[in-house]
């Protein structure tokens, strides 16, 4: 049963990822992104990690993809307005060279991973355990990330305000 669900999710995840890269129309790419996000949420749910599942649904599906679709909507992306990018042999070679180290690292990590997993603990992935771990063991990185987000927010507000000022 679990493996059937896993393969269905994996199918949607991979086809969504392929759709992002290969579709000419940006709206289809956004829908591919949406498929990837939902399939990832399903993967988390399959791993019994209810907190990450919900975070993925609420943040990934509910906000991130919406904003990217919003951008496509507001700048009116059309196929004929996009630069022509042909797939030439030179492009393929160059991309392969860039991707090779990352792919090697991934392969190495997968090969090294222990594939005998212990059964999950009783309260694995619930919000209580996540909260306890975040606010005890990882409290410093957590706070640093929140300061980073605050900085990004203030920066975005300042940038958008400045442009309004110039126009008026």
């Amino acid at each position: 049963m679990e493996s059937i669900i896993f393969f269905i999710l994996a199918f949607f995840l991979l086809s969504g990822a392929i759709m992002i890269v290969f579709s000419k129309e940006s709206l289809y790419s956004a829908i591919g992104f949406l498929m990837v996000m939902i399939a990832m949420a399903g993967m988390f749910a399959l791993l019994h990690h209810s907190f990450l599942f919900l975070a993925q649904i609420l943040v990934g599906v509910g906000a991130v993809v919406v904003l990217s679709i919003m951008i496509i909507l507001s700048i009116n992306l059309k196929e004929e307005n996009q630069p022509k990018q042909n797939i030439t042999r030179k492009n393929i070679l160059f991309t392969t060279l860039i991707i090779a180290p990352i792919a090697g690292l991934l392969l190495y990590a997968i090969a090294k991973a222990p594939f005998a997993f212990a059964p999950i603990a009783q309260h694995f992935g619930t919000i209580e355990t996540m909260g306890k771990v975040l606010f005890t063991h990882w409290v410093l990185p957590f706070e640093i990330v929140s300061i980073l987000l605050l900085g990004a927010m203030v920066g975005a507000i300042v940038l958008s305000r400045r442009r309004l000022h110039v126009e008026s």
Partner: protein
Amino acid sequence: MDALIIETVVKAIVVLLVISALAGFGTYLERKVLAFMQRRLGPMHVGPFGLLQILADGIKLFTKEDIVPQHANRLIFMVAPAITAATAFIALAAIPLFPEFTIFGYTIRPIIADLNVGILFVLGAMASGLYGPLLAGMAQANKWGIIGSARTAILFLSYEVVTGLSILAPIMIVGSLSLIDFNNAQAGGVSDWMVWKQPVAFVLFLIAGFAETNRTPFDLLEHEAEVISGYATEYSGMRWGMFFIGEYANMITVAFLASLVFFGGFNPIGFIPGFLAIILKVSFFFFLMLWVRASWPHVRPDQLMWLCWKVLMPIAILNILITGIVLL
């Protein structure tokens, strides 16, 4: 394991059919209630009290020609209404509809999926519902549709924040995200209801719920006078009907959430048994939505954003802060 799957499938089909039927009945109720509030009679001619109007409308929707505009993005245009309806029903999956009951010696728990994070799941699934109007508006080659979908994205993204923050304070008091725990925490009768402890959170949740279900003070997505029908301009027949079913299912979901979180859920009140109590509460909230529609005009888009970010969100954060200090 197999019994569980069969039971879940049966429950899902029952909920799907009953809520779809209720959505049809909801349109009739809406027309009647609005009519009586405006000193009209509403649907009168088809059947007794106009009751067969639902059937007539259904036949009309099913047999109407399904038009896809020439320059529309065919695939997305056709899929978008299904997204609205599907997410509305997925949100209902985690809601405990009634107390446990026994049929033929077999105990049934009327909840499709008993998640320990039920309340966030419902909010998340309802929030994903915005893809229906958003993609529908973008796929049809129509400027009203584009305006409608831009409004959808802004409205849903903003009011999601208020819904989440307003419901956080009750979550802090109960200490659980399971809707069944919420229900059990208010088992001690009317004085135990969450609304007495968190009146501010309730008002905020209700306002944000009206916005999330696209009801009248905030129904800017399909405001007739400004954007024709917004995202639904080019839709006809059953595709348009699916948007409608999704909207009514969302109304029922919000009514269930409000009664489960703030008004004691399906606990019996005095001599009223639990299942009747929750039906009465949900009907009251449904009626409240129609009542507000008859009483209030629409808001402007800038007023909508002002209300969300400068009024509701600060109040919600203050409410959480005060709740936290009191709990400590």
